[in-house]
């Protein structure tokens, strides 16, 4: 169950956050343990605490955060059976296809159900998702997940090859999403499944430009005009704080050194004889020259007395950010098309299902 309660119960699916790169789902079973590289836990200890809690390990060797599952966390945590869709694509497709509360959506194929979970969240209990997967084992896995998460009233999963056998609904969907190798084969069937009484939308997700061109031709053949977008996914900014501590420490030492030598040199000249003092005097002079700027800068401090204490110069901090060195450069091209309903005022030879370019 994906719970909406404030606290965790036995049987809930929670997201265990270990690190940014180690996020995993866990269905709570009171009798069992949860062991990880951040410590060992008794799952019964997870029950009754609020979602979002930080929990320390029994053996004191670390901690985890227990989070409420959301489609976004699920996308990061789910076991991949196929290449999945990530947030950038999912959110853009959802918006472009105008998926919202109550929408009826068709998707093929289900894959690892990353997109599916997001759609289920967005359409809510008054909407419906018709999902099709041609691989039997994957269909079964997805069905298990939908059951475990409590979504069976919102999604109908069918094991079917939609390119060969079409969809199982007619005049039903507000939008249709195709993430399959040959979307052009499913497009003719798509027309049947979509509603004819309002604007409906299709999106095809294909990594290769050749697929895009074939898809657009197929869309035009059934009377649609395509629109193409490539959302290049998110750049993650990394912040690094550069403290010039080491340099500053060195600087402090140097100044202190010079200030000390200054004081020593002054005293020596006062006492010293010419001959003996010469060499040292020279040395002092050199240091004095070298340290001219420094001495000037440090004027105040030295004049205050024999104190050779040196004020630490202000450490400069600069906050910078840069993009991670390797980012996901391309997932797929998104091809969108809209289907217009027929208009009764149009020339009578057009039948009810004649569709227009938009």
């Amino acid at each position, binding site marked *: 169950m994906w719970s909406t309660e404030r606290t965790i119960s036995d049987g809930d699916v929670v997201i265990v956050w270990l690190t940014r790169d180690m996020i995993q789902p866990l269905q709570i079973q009171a009798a069992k343990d949860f062991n990880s590289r951040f410590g060992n836990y008794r799952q019964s200890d997870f029950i009754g605490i609020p979602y*979002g809690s930080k929990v320390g390990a029994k053996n004191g060797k670390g901690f985890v955060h227990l989070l409420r599952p959301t489609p976004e966390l699920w996308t990061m945590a789910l076991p991949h059976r196929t290449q999945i869709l990530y947030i*950038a694509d999912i959110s853009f497709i959802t*918006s472009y296809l105008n998926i919202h509360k109550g*929408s009826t959506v068709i998707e093929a194929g289900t894959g690892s159900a990353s997109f599916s979970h997001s759609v289920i969240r967005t359409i809510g209990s008054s909407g419906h998702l018709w999902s099709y997967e041609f691989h039997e084992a994957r269909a079964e896995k997805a069905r298990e997940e939908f059951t475990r998460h409590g979504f069976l009233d919102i999604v109908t999963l069918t094991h079917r090859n939609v390119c060969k056998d079409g969809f199982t609904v007619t005049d039903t969907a507000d939008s249709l999403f195709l993430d399959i190798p040959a979307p052009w084969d499913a497009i003719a069937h798509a027309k049947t499944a979509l509603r004819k009484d309002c604007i409906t939308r299709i999106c095809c997700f294909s990594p290769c430009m050749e697929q895009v061109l074939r898809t657009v031709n197929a869309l035009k053949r059934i009377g649609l005009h395509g629109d193409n977008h490539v959302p290049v996914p998110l750049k993650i900014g990394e912040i690094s704080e550069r403290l010039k501590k080491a340099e500053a420490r060195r600087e402090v030492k140097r100044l202190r050194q010079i200030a000390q030598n200054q004081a020593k040199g002054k005293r020596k000249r006062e006492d010293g004889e010419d001959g003996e003092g010469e060499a040292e005097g020279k040395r002092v002079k050199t240091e004095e020259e070298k340290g001219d700027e420094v001495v000037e800068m440090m004027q105040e401090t030295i004049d205050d007395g024999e104190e050779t204490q040196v004020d630490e110069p202000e450490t400069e901090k600069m906050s910078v950010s840069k993009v991670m060195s390797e980012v996901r450069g391309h997932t797929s091209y998104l091809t969108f098309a809209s289907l217009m309903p027929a208009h009764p005022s149009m020339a009578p030879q057009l039948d009810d299902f004649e569709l227009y370019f938009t």
Partner: protein
Amino acid sequence: MSLDLSTGEPSSSSTIHSSSTIKSGNHVLLRLPNGDVRGVKADKDSTITVGRLGSFYANELIGQPFGFTHEIVDKKLKVVPPRTLQEVEDTDATNELINDGEFVQPLTIDEITALKQSGVHASDIIKKQIEMHANYALKTEYSKEKYKKRKEAKYSKTFTTIEPTLFNVCDYWFNKDQSRIRDVRADTLSQILNLANIRPGGRYIAVDEASGLIVSGILSRMGGEGRLITICDTDSPPAYPVMVQMNFEKTMVNTVLASLNWATAEEEYKPIVPPSDLPEDEIRSERQKSRLKKRKGLTDALTNTREELFAGDFDALIVATEYDAMSVLDKLVPYLAGSASIVVQSQYGQILNDLQNQLRNIPGYLCPSVTEGWLRRYQVLPGRTHPTMMTSGSGGFILHAIKVYVHS
């Protein structure tokens, strides 16, 4: 001509969304032949004027489904098929011998005006121009298509209505004046809504200084179910102009949306409200009675909203503000439930980078990360497929973090 089409609404009977047909009082976005989008109001019995295209009776538009192309003929509307995608064949033509010059297109402006006034249809004007164009035959087929399209944009009296989906309305505002919506491009808006896990029945807090674009997005995804409290910096209720084009169902908006300002959102603050309770014998008129009743309603609503905010346990916080984001978070994150999403938007990367820096050192914020969306559009035409030459430079930046409880 009014129509009696099925409304094409989703299966649930009540919805916050605009219906798929134009109703009286709706704000309608019209796409003109040259690609510009103009907003008009379809009030019953009024006349709508659309710049160069002319005017028509609003009643002609009311009842029409969104998305069709209409031609203005004597102030009435006729549905026409949208411009179809002409298949253009490959060509050997080049621009080797084409010279631009004064005599290339010989129809003078006077001749064209005369043709227009004599009622010659746009397509005939264009035909005539093509006939007289010295170099037309030399152009490539692609170039001819482009020429035709440009001329059609100039002389055609048609427009297409745009369905007021969140995506379309965001696009309209982004192209019209993106600074008014803090550069929030449609892909950025979509990511904000998904990252914040906006869904029907959810409870959210938002600070929207993007003309109401964020609020429109949240309301749209909530579908009339749940609760949204916004905090603004004005005395009177906030103006969220983007909501106007969404054509939301008003009663549903009022059930879901409530607003406070930075003073009334403060727990220690006691709002100064005019008195709304007077003993019966002091009430002088019916009008005064109803005025007092109205005042009481507002005061009660304010009190209830404040109590609701202070009781906390909200599902997400979305912030798009000019004010210092950290101070906003300090104020409002305490009202979020554990595991809630926090999403902060800015046009500037530096601001969110600095914020992320601060949040990294605060244990109550899990994994603050800054992202930026990229979007590249392609034109897909036979033999002419390529990314568009001009594209949006920036859609803004997003910071996302998860609220966690530090005491275990």
